[in-house]
């Protein structure tokens, strides 16, 4: 299966960050099918967006890890390519690197001169501040600005060859080859970029699919309803900015539009929101907008996962809400057992790798393998004492794999920690223990209490010790696939961290 995911705006980028992590954990695979290939495209006018950069960091680190493990593992990061289609900046695609305002897009001066009535209409629709806003900084919570800009774009235009060109080319190619293709959009409908971009891009994509005669490529969307507020608001000289008080208004308008027009564009729509709003620091966008990951974004990606299943009843609506008003736990998530298993497995691997095994390997740098194995008998299973490797523990490739795994683990732990820390309000989170998700300079001893469980916990407390995992690593016999080096170590750990 080939999955094409588009994240529009800051929340869309955060959803793609979640999708990248869930893809690595195998949650986007279908049972009995080959691993799903995931391609991601960001739509963001604000190049400085911290949310975009964070998602790109997660993407880059995951790709680096997959690259160093390519062909060397049997389970972890095996198959299921992760492709980056880059960032499509709708503003730059129209204006290049220069500044761009609404007044410039619609050549207001010419408009006023040639057709004063149209010029007057523009003044009615957009305030002077909106008309002169530099759009390179995003749409500042004003969906009409984004809609006006993006609807004027032809996706298959040569100017977008690096982003949309490749993206649409791959969709066309996959559909032509009879592959199972899914396109999924993510974005919020209460801000500026997502609210304007998701319906507009959805409409443009639907037109393109029809033009290409591609029938079997479902176009779905996960739309985020208000789930956060701002702690403060802008000062008088801040200029235009997204206001939390406008979120409901924007949401109402977007949902009204989607109920009237979106039915034709999207096959399935997932609406996610939260009554317990998390309060983020105020920001007009750019590097200062460092909102943490949120559970709603995870749910948005689980919507994507749901859309991979068999097509449900047409025109049916399903609702999902948490069981307990004051807390959220695993049973509140769709496919709860599977989701818990996959996220718990990923968390265990990242924690045990970054806070223990990697520290051992780092301390072993410069030691001979023989000496290192005195304290780490499990290493004899993965590292061989041949040639230069005996002096430095592992080859250059092993070291690269360790660094890549470190960086990937840190990205995953940061995401999981944010996910479990920013539920908002008085909502109690009972998924993962945030304290255990910190990157530590000292060796972690136990994985107990990392994953909150609905059950009474593992049968033996001893089994949650990292030492137990290391003993299992040592005992593990090589199967048909001879996994060696750091790649083999990661692959085996991934297997051991699976606790159904």
């Amino acid at each position, binding site marked *: 299966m080939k999955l094409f995911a588009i994240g529009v705006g800051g929340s869309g980028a955060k959803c793609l960050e979640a999708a990248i992590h869930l893809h690595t954990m195998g949650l986007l695979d279908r049972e009995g099918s080959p691993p799903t290939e995931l391609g991601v495209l960001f739509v963001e006018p604000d190049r400085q967006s911290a949310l975009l950069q964070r998602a790109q960091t997660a993407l880059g680190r995951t790709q680096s890890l997959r690259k160093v493990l390519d062909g060397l593992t049997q389970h972890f990061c095996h198959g299921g390519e992760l492709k980056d289609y880059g960032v499509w900046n709708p503003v730059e695609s129209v204006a290049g690197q220069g500044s761009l305002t609404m007044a410039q897009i619609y050549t207001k001066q010419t408009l006023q001169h040639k057709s004063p009535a149209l010029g007057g209409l523009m003044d009615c629709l957009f305030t002077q501040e909106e008309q002169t806003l530099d759009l390179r900084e995003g749409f500042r919570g004003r969906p009409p600005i984004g809609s006006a800009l993006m609807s004027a774009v032809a996706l298959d235009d040569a100017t977008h060859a690096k982003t949309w060109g490749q993206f649409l080319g791959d969709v066309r190619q996959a559909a032509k080859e009879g592959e199972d293709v899914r396109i999924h959009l993510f974005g919020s409908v209460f801000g500026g970029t997502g609210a304007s971009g998701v319906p507009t891009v959805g409409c443009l994509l639907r037109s393109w699919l029809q033009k290409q005669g591609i029938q079997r490529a479902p176009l779905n969307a996960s739309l985020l309803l208000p789930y956060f507020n701002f702690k403060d608001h802008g000062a008088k000289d801040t200029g235009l900015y997204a206001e939390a008080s406008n979120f409901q208004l924007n949401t109402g308008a977007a949902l009204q539009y989607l109920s009237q027009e979106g039915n034709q564009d999207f096959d399935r729509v997932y609406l996610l929101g939260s009554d317990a709003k998390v309060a983020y620091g105020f920001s007009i966008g750019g590097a200062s907008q460092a909102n943490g990951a949120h559970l709603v974004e995870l749910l948005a990606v689980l919507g994507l996962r749901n859309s991979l299943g068999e097509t449900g009843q047409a025109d049916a609506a399903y609702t999902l809400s948490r069981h307990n008003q004051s807390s959220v736990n695993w049973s509140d998530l769709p496919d709860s057992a599977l989701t818990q298993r996959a996220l718990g497995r990923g968390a265990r691997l990242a924690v045990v790798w970054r806070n*223990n095994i990697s*520290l*051992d390997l780092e*301390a*072993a740098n410069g030691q001979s393998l023989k*000496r*290192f*194995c*005195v*304290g*780490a*008998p499990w*290493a*004899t299973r993965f590292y061989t004492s041949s040639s230069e490797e005996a002096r430095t523990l592992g080859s250059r490739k092993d070291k690269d794999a360790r660094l890549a795994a470190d960086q990937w683990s840190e990205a995953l732990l940061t995401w999981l920690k944010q996910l479990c820390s920013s539920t908002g309000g008085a909502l109690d989170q009972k998924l993962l223990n945030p304290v255990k998700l910190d990157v530590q300079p000292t*060796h*972690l*001893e136990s994985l107990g209490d990392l994953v909150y469980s609905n059950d009474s916990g593992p049968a033996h407390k001893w089994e949650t*010790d*990292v*030492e137990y995992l*290391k*003993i299992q690593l*040592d*005992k593990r016999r090589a199967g048909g696939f001879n996994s060696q080096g750091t790649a083999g170590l990661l692959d085996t750990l991934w297997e051991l961290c699976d606790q159904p």
Partner: protein
Amino acid sequence: MRNLVTVVVFLVLGPMWTFFALPWLMETVFLGVFAAPGLQLQQFIDEVAGKLFVVFWLCNVSVVLLWVIRTMQRRAPSAAKVAAMRDRWWTAASLLLFAGLVLSSVMILLRFPQLSPGGIILLLALLLTSEVLLFWLPTVFASRRSYRLAVPGAQLFPKSLMGG
């Protein structure tokens, strides 16, 4: 569990070596080596096998039990902490050997000064053999799995034989 069974096995095998095999070897195979003018051979064998090696066996059993308890109680979160146990093993082994040498020297000087140089060397060799059988082998097989390579020479044995 497996390492506890191993400890019990060695606790049974140790006395068999100390109380039966060792005296028998001294009385038959090595009798000629120990023989020296003026030396009461039977008294020598009774005292060496019945006192010196029994005390040495008790020392070894105590240290093995301490080692096993220590490795069982102590979590092994980092490779460096496990590796540090090798130094402790060497310390324990050296102290045991030193105790054996002191006991032997005192016994030879005070009780059997007539013992020939060949006899002294053989006595020391038997002491070393006892340490191998009563300390090294039990620690190889009865250490917890995480510490299986902390004992020098443990890599000579298949890991499937090592402790749990």
